[in-house]
């Protein structure tokens, strides 16, 4: 890893994300505290108090209001940020649609946490997977460094004139949010070179009065506006690749594209995962490869736009595909599993197995990954819950 113009520090994922917000020169922050997001907003409040960032921080009374406040500040032309988790993200749901429909390039961090009841504060992707249809770009990181870098890239991608969609950047609860690792913090000048100043094509202006979000009849532009969101989402795939490349040129770290492939070449069994579960899967794949078993891993970074083409290409020579989901659609299957099968439909006869694992923070261990590979090798299909206890 090249580290140009940066200083290295040991920090948690949440601290790294806060550094990313500072480096992105965000002007307005509004948030409501929820475990395990809290240390992001605490750190930002501290940065504001110490004048390390020239942003205003508004402590609202709910997540719905947090998203409503950043919605309004972006319409007024100020780069804005918020962060949440779990129930808080669900409480924002209405505003998520509103922000995307208004085409505001807000960036938000989501620390992935389970949804109750029962109460559970641990890692699980049900919160953000429940928002997949809101029109937000979604990306899942597997390291603190990636969480910080993705946030900075997020503003570039979201604010691209061909995209203009909000950007949701995920990190796993506690595994990233509260675990310290080495992070290279780039110099401000480098980030400034990569990320231009915020400028929308519109903003609140009494000399050019406009209605922002007035109603549309069935014959009005409503359907066309939604179609444009779809097209912009597809277009964002290329923007993501371009911006990721530029990031690597200026800041020296290359995250590839929408997916990361690990040992997929010649792989018989390919496991698809996202977040830190993918790190464990990669480690296990390395071990199994050493034993002569042909295992490869695909890590989904971007879930929206969905990387269907990349996945079809990367899996075309596999004998069996497994998908690890940290969320489930009751009565259907794992969220990612369903989308993978839809992507492969008509283009591949490779069997796909869905593994629901790590729900509510249940540990996804090496032996769980091995069990998945063994189940695939045994030709198991459908949806399987991994590491559940028979007596509970």
């Amino acid at each position, binding site marked *: 890893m090249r580290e140009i113009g940066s200083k290295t520090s040991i920090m948690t994922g949440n601290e790294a994300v806060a550094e990313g917000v500072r480096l992105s020169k965000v002007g307005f922050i509004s948030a409501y505290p929820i475990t395990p997001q809290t240390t992001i907003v605490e750190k930002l409040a501290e940065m504001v108090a110490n004048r390390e960032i020239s942003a205003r921080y508004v402590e609202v*009374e709910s997540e719905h*209001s947090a998203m409503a406040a950043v919605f*309004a500040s972006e319409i007024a032309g*100020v780069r804005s940020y918020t962060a949440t988790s779990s129930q808080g993200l669900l409480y924002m749901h209405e505003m998520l649609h509103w922000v995307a429909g208004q085409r505001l390039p807000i960036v938000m961090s989501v620390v992935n946490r389970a949804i109750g009841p029962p109460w559970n504060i641990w890692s699980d992707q049900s919160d953000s997977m429940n928002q997949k249809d809101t029109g937000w770009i979604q990306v899942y990181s597997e390291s603190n460094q990636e969480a910080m870098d993705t946030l900075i890239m997020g503003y570039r991608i979201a604010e691209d004139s061909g995209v203009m969609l909000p950007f949701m950047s995920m990190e796993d609860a506690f595994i990233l949010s509260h675990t310290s690792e080495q992070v290279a913090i780039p110099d401000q000048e480098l980030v400034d070179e990569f990320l231009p100043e915020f400028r929308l094509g519109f903003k609140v202006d*009494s000399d050019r*009065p406009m209605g922002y979000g*007035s*109603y549309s009849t069935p014959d009005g532009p409503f359907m066309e506006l939604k179609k444009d969101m779809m097209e912009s989402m597809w277009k964002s795939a290329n923007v993501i690749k371009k911006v990721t490349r530029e990031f690597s040129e200026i800041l020296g770290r290359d995250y590839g594209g929408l997916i990361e492939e690990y040992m997929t070449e010649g792989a018989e069994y390919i496991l698809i995962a996202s977040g830190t579960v993918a790190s464990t899967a990669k480690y296990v794949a390395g071990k199994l490869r050493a034993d002569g078993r042909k295992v490869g891993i695909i890590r989904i970074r971007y879930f929206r736009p969905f990387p269907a083409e990349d996945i079809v290409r990367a899996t075309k020579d596999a004998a069996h595909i497994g998908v690890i989901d940290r969320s489930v659609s009751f009565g259907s299957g794992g969220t990612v599993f369903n989308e993978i099968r839809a992507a492969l439909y008509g283009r591949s006869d490779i069997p796909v197995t869905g593994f629901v694992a790590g729900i509510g923070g249940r540990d996804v261990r090496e032996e769980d990954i091995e069990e998945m590979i063994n189940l695939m090798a045994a030709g198991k299909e459908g949806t399987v819950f991994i590491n559940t206890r028979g007596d509970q």
Partner: protein
Amino acid sequence: MPTSIPEQELMEPGHTACQGCGATLAMRYVLKALGKKTVVSVPASCWAVIPGAMPNRTLDIPMVYTPFAATGASISGLREALDIRGDSDYNVVGFAGDGGTADIGLQSLSGAMERGHNVFYIMYDNEGYMNTGVQRSGSTPYGAETTTTPVGLDRNFKKQQKKVVADIMMAQGVPYVATATIAYPEDLIRKVQNAKKVNGPKFIQILAPCPTGWYYPPEKTIGVSRMAVQSRMFPLYEYSSGTFRLTRPSKPVTVREYVQSQKRFSHMDEDEIRTLQEEVDRRWESLLEKETH
């Protein structure tokens, strides 16, 4: 000829409100008081529809449309962002109905007022979800029939007293709180202008009679608005810097006369009218007491 009301018009003809709509006058007067350097945030409400379908608009100011519960938070974000931009001279106004204020928007309103942003929150009170088809809100008065409090075999008219948000705002310590109504435009405009002198949150509740939901002829809107004050059903007051001032109606009328002007109360019997009169008297006494403190 000098007029007591600013001549500047920021509301264009061609809006889509009902005939005799009180809410349109409320907006028109508020904007006359504040002028062009104003941005308005409007949640789901009659006013989200009145300007017409995109790309039409009826106001010569920027207007931000928000979901129902978002008014308080949206004006918070607008205010701070405009200040960051260096545009502190903008008036930032939340303009919400009574459902969007007394019910679903109360938390967001309370949060915004507590944080102390330099904003106006105008509640135009037509005492029900009128845009949605005349359903009961917390701000609907005792006795009113609505589509969700219908009078059938069981007389299910609203049995609870009106929740008065302006009183809640005073209790919360909002620095400027007032009530007004469209029958008294000079008073309404003066209150908005007084509010502007306060650097902080301002809350004004404007009674905006609704012929469609209150069932009276559209040409009676101003008369009904005036009777609401004269009957003390809707007392006019101003609370600023800890001083409370109550307006005494010059020609008092009874609650009976007021309810007889609208079909929504037409089912009320003598006992029920008396119950309402007693509540009105009780509240009036408590407001008088506020004045002496």
